[in-house]
């Protein structure tokens, strides 16, 4: 019988994709999930996908989540692949988070402070009990409203800085780098590190940040401040020459305040770790701030001993799109290389056998 | 002295956190000579070794090395590739902890062979022959040539490090407490070995040690350091038998009491 090599087959691929599409729709008797529902009711997922996809577009993120069947890494990947094709019209001015329309602002280092503690929308103080009544509930009872406090809400780090208690961030020279437009050159400047962390995998950031708390490169963090709310984005179009407001983004910003022992030229002061995330994302922003501070170890003359302090290690492995692609590429065919390995092992076996036979013959 | 010095340092200074580690250190090392730098921990002797070998940059002063062609090189003005090449060929460094320079996941033969290969050796059989000879020379059973260093005792590891360092026949070897972590009985054997090798190969060496007995056994000259300064220097026997500086006297007498 003549052997016919298996044709990988465009047909098989098309059928596999069709099957997946069918599975995505689920039971046709259940109504289809609309991206608007995801956008409105799975907001935290949308925000995570926007952060890891590096694109602030709630509607598109919701669509990506639907298309990816709730696989958030896959959804972020869809968003990234779309983002890369978009022309760049301009670059925004630095966002002014002191002018944030605050929804939430808490500090763990002061009992009270100008502007007060504002809890905002949170589940922080709930008991994590599955709410069996939730499916039956249509509208929750209305939350009580209050007038926003007109008092300014200075950032805690700025309050400490005014007293000279915080080591000022060394200013990076020139325009910050963009990792998506220029190849990263090691060692990365802080701006590039922050960008890498801001789009990093939340689980990875969490694990790395957590490891610093367990003694692997710890620096005694305090949550100086976490604030969340809308910040306006401004650009200066070339043809106008002055700044215009192009819309708002909702952000969570975290500044960790950490110990610092000082060096031969500097007195002991506090240092800060910085975290910024799209949407309401305390965990993400806090983790990022912990890792950012750990990565400053080298700059501060501290010993670099822990994984979270190793910028090359952290930033080379934080990106879940890169990681998932490379891990999953192992399912592509590798039979040519494997064949060469089989041949090599067989050669070694034959050699060992010949050796044993020769010895036996002696 | 007819030959010019191999290594010359003038006015070396260095401070950590405002604490001076080196203050105005002058030093000369002649070809084939072993110079012991002694002093208590914190006296600056390890800093001196690191500065002389280019691993640390001094705050002030200069260290010059004379290459086989007689050309002088300011160690701290050399381009990084040149300094690294020097460390791979003409120079050697023996650490107190051999794990710092050995590759623990590479066989004994591979460890000795690495410097040969870095110097361009490309004949497996020849590399193996040289590695075998070096293992014998440092009293390691050549049948262990394919064993990993992690199966070696502390003394064997130190001897393997020495074989690896000397395989390219360097002219100058920096030694940092080479017998530091070893039992007394193992130390004696190693010292004997090092003394023989240094003599036979005509190697010059800067040897840092806190142990005056080690200095007495290996070094022709000695420099006594305290607080980052060389307080006394001279022929080893002379300095140890008739110390002039009060600190040297104290050092020598405290050894005698032990």
């Amino acid at each position, binding site marked *: 019988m003549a052997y016919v090599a298996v044709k990988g087959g465009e047909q098989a691929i098309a059928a596999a994709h069709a099957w997946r599409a069918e599975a995505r729709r689920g039971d046709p008797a259940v109504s289809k999930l609309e991206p608007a529902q995801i956008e409105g009711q799975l907001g935290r997922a949308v925000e995570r996908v926007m952060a890891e996809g590096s694109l602030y577009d709630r509607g598109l993120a919701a669509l990506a989540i639907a298309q990816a069947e709730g696989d958030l890494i896959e959804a972020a990947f869809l968003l990234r692949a779309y983002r890369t094709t978009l022309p760049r019209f301009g670059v925004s001015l630095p966002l002014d988070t002191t002018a944030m329309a605050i929804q939430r602002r808490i500090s763990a280092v002061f009992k009270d402070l100008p502007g007060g503690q504002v809890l905002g929308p949170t589940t922080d103080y709930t008991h994590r009990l599955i709410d069996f009544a939730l499916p039956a509930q249509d509208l929750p009872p209305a939350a009580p409203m209050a007038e926003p406090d007109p008092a300014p809400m200075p950032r805690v780090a700025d309050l400490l800085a005014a007293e000279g208690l915080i080591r000022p961030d060394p200013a990076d020279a020139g325009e910050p780098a963009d990792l998506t437009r220029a190849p990263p050159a090691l060692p990365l400047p802080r701006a590039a590190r922050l960008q890498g962390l801001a789009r990093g995998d939340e689980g990875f950031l969490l694990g790395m940040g957590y490891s610093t708390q367990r003694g692997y490169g710890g620096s005694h963090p305090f949550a100086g401040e976490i604030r969340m709310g809308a910040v306006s984005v401004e650009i200066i179009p070339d043809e106008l020459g002055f700044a215009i407001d192009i819309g708002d983004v909702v952000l969570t910003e975290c500044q960790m305040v950490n110990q610092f022992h000082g060096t031969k030229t500097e007195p002991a002061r506090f240092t800060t770790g910085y975290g910024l995330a799209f949407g309401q994302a305390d965990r993400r922003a806090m983790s990022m701030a912990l890792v950012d501070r750990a990565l400053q170890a080298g700059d501060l003359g501290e010993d670099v001993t822990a994984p979270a302090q190793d910028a090359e290690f952290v930033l080379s492995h934080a990106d879940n799109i890169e990681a998932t*692609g490379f891990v999953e590429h192992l399912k592509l065919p590798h039979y040519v290389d494997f064949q060469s390995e089989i041949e090599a092992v067989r050669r070694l076996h034959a050699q060992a056998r010949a050796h044993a036979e020769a010895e036996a013959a002696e | 002295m007819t030959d010019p010095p191999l290594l010359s340092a003038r006015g070396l200074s260095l401070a950590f956190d405002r604490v001076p580690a080196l203050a105005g250190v002058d030093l000369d090392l002649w070809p084939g000579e072993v110079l012991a730098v002694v002093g208590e921990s914190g006296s600056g002797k390890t800093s001196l070794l690191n500065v002389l070998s280019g691993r640390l940059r001094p705050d002030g002063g200069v260290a010059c090395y004379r290459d086989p062609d007689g050309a002088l090189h300011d160690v701290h003005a050399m381009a990084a590739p040149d300094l690294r090449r020097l460390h791979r060929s003409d120079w050697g460094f023996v650490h107190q902890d051999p794990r710092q320079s050995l590759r623990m996941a590479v066989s004994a033969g591979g460890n000795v062979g690495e410097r040969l290969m870095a110097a361009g050796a490309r*004949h497996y059989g020849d590399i193996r022959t040289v590695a075998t000879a070096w293992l014998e020379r440092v009293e390691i059973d050549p049948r262990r040539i394919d064993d990993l260093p992690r199966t070696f005792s502390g003394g064997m590891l130190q001897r393997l490090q020495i074989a690896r360092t000397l395989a390219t026949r360097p002219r100058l070897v920096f030694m940092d407490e080479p017998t530091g972590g070893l039992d007394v009985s193992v130390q004696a054997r190693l010292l004997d070995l090092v003394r023989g090798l240094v003599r036979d190969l005509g190697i010059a060496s800067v040897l840092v040690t806190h142990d005056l007995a080690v200095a007495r056994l290996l070094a022709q000259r000695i420099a006594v350091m305290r607080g980052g300064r060389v307080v006394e220097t001279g022929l080893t026997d002379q300095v140890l038998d008739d110390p002039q500086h009060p600190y040297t006297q104290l050092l020598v007498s405290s050894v005698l009491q032990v």
Partner: protein
Amino acid sequence: MNGYNFAYLDEQTKRMIRRAILKAIAIPGHQVPFASREMPLPYGWGTGGIQVTASILGSHDVLKVIDQGADDTTNAVSIRRFFARTAGVRTTTRTEDATVIQTRHRIPETTLTARQILVYQVPQPEPLYRLEPSRAEGRRMHGLAEYGAMHVKLYEDIARYGQVAISYDYPVMVNHRYLTSPSPIPAFDNPKLHRMPALQLFGAGREKRIYAIPPYTDVRSLDFEDHPFRPHRAQAACALCGARGSYLDEVIIDDRGGRMFVCSDTDYCAGRRAAGHVGTEGAAA
């Protein structure tokens, strides 16, 4: 395809990549960092090769894509279709007809010519990474041409196995200067790298590196004088076309240890059969 530029990438990006390619050609074997873009294919699935191909492709080019030497493997099909869709270029499975060949893990058996470009997909451009995981330190080693550690790896193999045990992604010295990964091609293919008339471009998307071997460049597989490099293949003839000099895939045909060997290069095999060569299991085409 609607809404996308020719060959997917915008022209500025292509220009940036072409600049990296030119630099890579100027310094054979040296890894040039480039601002790798997010692609609609996952990392590790050929994003580097695709970006290189997209940047050099013109409308008159004829593209061939292979994976494991075959035109019909899933990833080759996917990438070929990507360019058919986004660039509308002609595609082919015939090696001779292609002007650009994108490959994963093989070099075609048919000798390439000076009018062809071979684009490799590279998962890990740094040949030193298993010995030295820090890329910063690796760069230093390349800068100083400190490759002793790589020879130690070869030495250890010979000491342990009597021979070098690297069977694919076998490191090479390009133009007597840079230690280079040939990508995970079998060591059998390494001799083809040497003085190849075609331009060879290597793209690593996730690692953001491009490197090149210009036409007719010396490429030497690392070895020892008394243990010279030797390419290996299965000791068999292709069951379909009878070829004895090509790289062979092993196909398991039953659960009783039955197996046969067939050419990994499907186009080469088909060409031989068309020319009347027949193996033990093959039917004349």
